């Protein structure tokens, strides 16, 4: 899976993208992925602690915690948007 981070999430985690391969059977949804990522480092845990402040997209469409994810997907985490 290709993971992308934007805005302050990228600053907190220290990278804008990473490729991850959770063990088979552990990650079926966005929610599973968040739980797994939080165990990868203290920075991940800090950035992803408050899901109310997070927005996520799977393959460039807005997603929810129960949205399915699979190998090869592009999954992005970012704060609420502030363009315009």
């Amino acid at each position, binding site marked *: 899976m290709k993971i992308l981070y934007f805005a302050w999430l990228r600053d907190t985690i220290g990278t804008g993208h990473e490729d991850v391969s959770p063990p088979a059977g552990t990650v079926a949804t966005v929610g599973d992925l968040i739980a797994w990522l939080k165990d990868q480092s203290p920075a991940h845990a800090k950035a992803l602690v408050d899901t109310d402040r997070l927005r996520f997209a799977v393959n460039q469409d807005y997603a929810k915690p129960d949205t399915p994810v699979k190998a090869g997907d592009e999954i992005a985490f*970012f704060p609420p948007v502030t*363009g315009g």
Partner: protein
Amino acid sequence: MAVRVQREDFDVGAEMAAFCAGDTSVGAVASFVGLVRADKTAEGSGAVSAMTLEHYPGMTERQLEAIEADARERWPLHDVLVVHRYGRMEPGERIVLVLTASSHRQAAFDACAFLMDWLKTKAPFWKLEETPNGGRWVDARESDDAAAARWGGDEG
């Protein structure tokens, strides 16, 4: 159908001149230009000297196209243009342009306001302000969520 995400500035007059040129069924063109404000910071951390707009290449265009398609379903629009910049901009610089054309003014006005409201809550852009106290990611505003909600049918 036209959505553009670009680093460079845009020329409002040139965009408007090219917009639905020669279509004599258009009676109304509404536009909106958003600019960088020097006094934009809300937390009293001093004047904003510049801001950098980050975006999510690919998803940004995709979301803007979805928002545009939605506007076209809601109003009888002859043409729509959305241009949104990214990168570093100083106060007074243009950030975003929305143009809508319709036979009648109410549809043009409403579609233009709708596009801005939805763009503000759905298009993946994030503002980093440069202030005397350093960089600061702008928080999303509840008033923008409320503005978008008034149009109903938010599937994002």
